[in-house]
């Protein structure tokens, strides 16, 4: 027995040693002598866990495309290099990952896509090291943190545009169906003002926890409230779940929907039960214009069928290009980037975005899905300014 045990233990420790040592000599030491040192970007997003979903494919593709463009066209004074890391949908992991990116991989900037808690946990390390952190997503406004830039529309920019459009189309009574999270709860009062300013009202609201599998009670409440349209502010799989159940429920068949957080792909996967949904975003794959076409074409060249030209891809793409514009000389580093960022504008696939304070002014498109869930653009607003004014 003992010999058996021992040999097993020895074998196991050998395996452990090999695996660990293999991993240890992993991704370090890529610096090439002689060259200009590349600008390293850490890109953190949820690749696993419950928050994985929306951004995983598009975000990575947009990022890689931007890095390729910058390096091949020498758009920045230093070459770019990206390191992708998974925050496992967990703030603890996010904090750890960012420390690794910053203190071990020595990145010069961080781009992140993911839940607020992850972003804030990550930002601790970025702040400590004094490097810029670009959040490439749409999210709550009003956060003025020295190194954190939101490279995507803040909630008010898209939501208020969306609300105005719906009311304009004759839907004056609105219902606000949100995920149970403070940014979404916080977005309700300004949305109410926006609706009232346009001549409508928000007549009811409910908030459901993430991971809700059965929305029948909410649908009953909505049916009882008899709004003209529902604004869906649900995240991830919940939005699809809600839309599926909404689409299959004849009690609410007459009520229009406006979605705020679903990706185009998710909308499309809804098929017929995803028909006639309003939405607003800073990018749709159907945006007109040459830049948009070229962006799609480049992604398709790189990824073929897997190409995901969505809003996540665009925001990551823009974030990298913003960084590139801030790298003006071979000596530019984190400090110079931080100084330059507040005054940078980027011509992205959707049009021009301009960083103003910690947020951007951006084009906003209002779309509506057709009979098979494809988004058609119904209105375009260029250069929508952020509500927040950070010094």
């Amino acid at each position: 027995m003992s010999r058996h045990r021992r040999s097993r233990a020895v074998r196991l420790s050998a395996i452990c040693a090999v695996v660990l040592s293999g991993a240890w000599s992993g991704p370090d030491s890529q610096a090439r002598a002689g060259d200009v040192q590349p600008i390293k970007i850490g890109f953190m997003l949820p690749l696993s866990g419950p928050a994985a979903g929306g951004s995983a494919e598009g975000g990575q593709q947009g990022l890689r495309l931007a890095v390729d463009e910058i390096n091949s066209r020498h758009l920045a004074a230093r070459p770019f290099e990206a390191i992708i890391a998974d925050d496992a949908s967990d703030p603890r992991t996010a904090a750890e990952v960012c420390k690794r990116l910053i203190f071990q991989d020595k990145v010069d900037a961080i781009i992140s896509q993911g839940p607020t808690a992850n972003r804030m946990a990550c930002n601790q390390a970025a702040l400590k090291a004094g490097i810029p952190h670009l959040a490439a997503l749409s999210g709550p406004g009003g956060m003025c943190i020295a190194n954190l830039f939101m490279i995507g529309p803040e909630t008010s920019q898209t939501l208020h545009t969306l609300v105005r459009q719906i009311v304009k189309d004759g839907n004056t009574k609105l219902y606000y169906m949100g995920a149970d999270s403070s940014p979404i709860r916080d977005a309700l009062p300004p949305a109410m003002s926006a609706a009232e300013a346009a001549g409508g009202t928000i007549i009811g609201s409910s908030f459901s926890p993430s991971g809700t599998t059965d929305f029948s009670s909410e649908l009953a409440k909505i049916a009882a409230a008899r709004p003209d349209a529902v604004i869906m502010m649900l995240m991830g799989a919940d939005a699809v779940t809600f839309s599926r159940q909404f689409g299959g429920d004849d009690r609410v068949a007459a009520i229009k929907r406006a979605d705020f957080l679903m990706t185009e792909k998710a909308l499309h996967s809804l098929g017929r039960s995803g028909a006639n949904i309003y939405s607003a975003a800073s990018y749709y794959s159907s945006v007109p214009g040459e830049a948009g076409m070229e962006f799609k074409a480049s992604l398709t060249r790189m990824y073929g069928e897997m190409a995901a030209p969505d809003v996540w891809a665009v925001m990551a793409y823009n974030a990298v290009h913003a960084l590139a514009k801030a790298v003006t000389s071979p000596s530019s580093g984190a400090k110079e980037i931080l100084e330059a960022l507040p005054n940078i504008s980027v011509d992205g696939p959707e049009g021009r975005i301009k960083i103003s304070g910690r947020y951007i002014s951006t084009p906003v498109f209002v779309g509506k899905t057709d009979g098979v869930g494809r988004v058609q653009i119904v209105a375009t607003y260029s250069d929508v300014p952020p509500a927040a004014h950070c010094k």
Partner: protein
Amino acid sequence: MGVVFDAIFSVSVFLLVSIGLFVILGLMNIVNLAHTAFMAVAVYAELYFTGHGWNFWLSAAAGVAVTTLLGAIVEFAIVRRLYGRHIDDTILATWGVSLILVQVLAIAFGSTTTSVAPPLSGSVKFLGELLSIYRIFIVATVATVVAAMAAVIRFSKAGLIVRMVMTNEPLARGVGINTGMVQRLTFVAGAAFAGLAGTLLGPTQGISPSFASSLLASTFLIVLMSGRRLSGLLFACVAAGLAQTLFSAYGNPVIANVMVICTAVVVLRLKPEGLIWPRH
């Protein structure tokens, strides 16, 4: 009235999801934390086959078949070695299985949320309420499954064998029952139930690799409330379904989720043996 139908549906969903966990815990004393991962596999199989032009029912059947097969593989590779171990071990091992399955799905299919179209659409009007036909179908299927299971357990020879294995496994072996086979089949049956739950709920949900994982804790508590009896499971699902529906309808869905959990905590404190018929 709508609340009543919503409650019935909610109870059915709880039953559908928990019944596979129930048979595995009841017969094998194994907590299968990979249950919702099995459901996710089923729904992705369904997605895959509908994506390849199969009709829904065929895809659903294929989804159940894939999950059943997966259950057999997991049983053979892992669970077989956990018989007689402490319940903590089974929790950890099946947790590991679920990590693997979920991540394999994420790698194979990507983690983007998608969905699959329900095979039945439209509603019928009943007692002044519009009821979705697909939901009625789910409720009816669950009712059939539970009734059939009750009949089998109570009246058939197979049911007696199952109960023998449940109360005294070594003795069941001692009277000639191949209990290893019974347990093997139980696990596979549990996986098949997960497959059924996954494929049936698929069209009502957004599909991502962490499909249904939010149901794991509450269904696990429900199964504990069942006292390892089918009647107990029924009671437990009714309690949970009522708590869920009433608190969502007249309160707040966050509180509703917490209340389902609280129900289990209170019930198991007052009746540690679970919600079972009083024995004469």
